[in-house]
């Protein structure tokens, strides 16, 4: 698609590089704070993780050993209702948020015990912040979810989990952003840039733009962009595959970590993880088979549903699997945001992170998310 027209202005309060869920949520938040924001989107040659997202708002497995990540994720689940309402009101686009809580299935006694220990540790680490969960035996889980298979020994449940439509969310964020006066520029990969403290220039789509703030939200592209702004973003791809069944009448009252039913009735099967480089085209039958088999062990009635679509996409993974948020020490005003949970974290990105960026400083507790955690410390 050709660019509709050149952007009229070239000086902005903030430039966000990356038009996926992370960049659009931050851009939306900045524009709502009153900052004239430019959102640069590379185009469909980008890896487009946001188009392949599974759509969970997922809390229950996030941040073992890193309670700050659990809090950040939980914070986002708390912000989600307000964000969804705000977007729906402003744009008329419903992100189809549904947060009834969620479950993780355990097949066999060993999985149930391991999951129980995992959840107990999550709760212990949460301290006074709290972490509500239940380990529910199959007999009771059968009353919560329809047609559970005989191999299911139980589920873990937390009230925080939910799901949404990633595509409706992305469209709502873009529509909300431009509706608030933000400038969206498609087919605008960054060609050149300069960095000085609170003074940046970025060239894209044949134009040069300037701003005192720049936010790198380019997914895997951040790895190459960050050093230009005195930042580090050591992110690598982790492929996930998704299988989609034909639509069925509504059956699943809540999402599971690897299976959810969309508002329109499709069942989505996901949660695979593999290293396939940047390949999103060739999907391996072995992994698809494993995914389908586990789904059928959880819900045997899924076996007779037709698979109508399958795709894969690349998660944006830091070495430890946690998000990276940073402000450049060398060039204040330059920020990075990197994560593999563009849907889950949309709430905090729009409602908490964007105000920090607008104010010019990340809150002190965000320092735990800095890429400095990967630096080797010299012995004293």
């Amino acid at each position, binding site marked *: 698609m050709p660019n509709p027209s050149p952007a009229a202005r070239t000086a902005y309060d903030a430039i966000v590089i990356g038009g996926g869920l992370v960049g659009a949520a931050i851009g939306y938040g900045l524009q709502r704070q009153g900052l004239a924001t430019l959102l640069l989107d590379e185009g469909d040659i980008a890896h487009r993780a946001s188009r392949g997202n599974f759509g969970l708002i997922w809390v229950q497995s996030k941040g073992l050993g890193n309670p700050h990540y659990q809090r950040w994720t939980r914070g986002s689940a708390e912000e989600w209702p307000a964000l969804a309402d705000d977007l729906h009101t402003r744009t008329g686009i419903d992100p189809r948020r549904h947060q009834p809580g969620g479950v993780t299935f355990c097949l066999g006694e060993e999985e149930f015990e391991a999951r129980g220990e995992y959840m107990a540790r999550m709760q212990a680490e949460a301290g006074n912040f709290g972490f509500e969960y239940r380990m529910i035996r199959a007999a009771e889980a059968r009353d919560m979810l329809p047609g559970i298979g005989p191999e299911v020994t139980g589920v873990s449940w937390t009230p925080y989990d939910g799901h949404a439509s990633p595509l409706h969310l992305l469209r709502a964020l873009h529509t909300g952003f431009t509706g608030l006066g933000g400038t969206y520029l498609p087919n605008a990969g960054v060609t050149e840039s300069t960095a000085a403290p609170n003074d940046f220039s970025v060239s894209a789509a044949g134009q040069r733009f300037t701003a005192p703030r720049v936010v790198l939200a380019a997914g895997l592209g951040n790895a190459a962009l960050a050093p230009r702004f005195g930042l580090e973003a050591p992110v690598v791809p982790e492929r996930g595959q998704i299988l989609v069944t*034909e*639509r*069925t*009448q509504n*059956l699943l009252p809540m999402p599971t970590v690897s299976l959810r039913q969309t508002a*329109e*009735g499709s069942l989505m099967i996901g949660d695979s993880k593999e290293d396939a480089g940047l390949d999103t085209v060739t999907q391996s039958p072995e992994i698809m088979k494993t995914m389908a088999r586990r789904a059928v062990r959880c819900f*045997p*009635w899924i076996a007779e549903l*037709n698979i109508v679509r399958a795709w894969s996409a690349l998660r944006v993974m830091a070495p430890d699997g946690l998000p990276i948020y940073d402000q450049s020490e060398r060039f204040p005003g330059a920020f990075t945001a990197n994560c593999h949970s563009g849907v889950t974290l949309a709430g905090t990105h729009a409602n908490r992170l964007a105000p920090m960026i607008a104010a010019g400083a990340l809150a002190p507790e965000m320092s735990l998310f800095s890429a400095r955690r990967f630096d080797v410390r010299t012995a004293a």
Partner: protein
Amino acid sequence: MFAQRPDPRPATVEVFVGDAALRVPEGSTAAAAVMLAGLPAIRETPVNGSPRLPYCMMGICFDCLAEIDGVANRQACMVTVRPGMRIAPQHGARTARVPA
């Protein structure tokens, strides 16, 4: 609305579209039978309930979904008729058979 070519093969295979019996040539698709039956629609979409008839006839558009011999959501244009085949409308999303 739909007419057969002037040189049709003989209509020898009897199928049922809804409750109506009709004969179609051997090798026809179930979607062809649907169109010859003259129904106003063979399915209603799951989300908006809008009526659909076979369209692309080559397995792409999914507008010809029908319940064929008791199996929901089959692409009628990809199914060759058999004697006695029952082709019924697909009303919205199918139902999964969940044991009680």
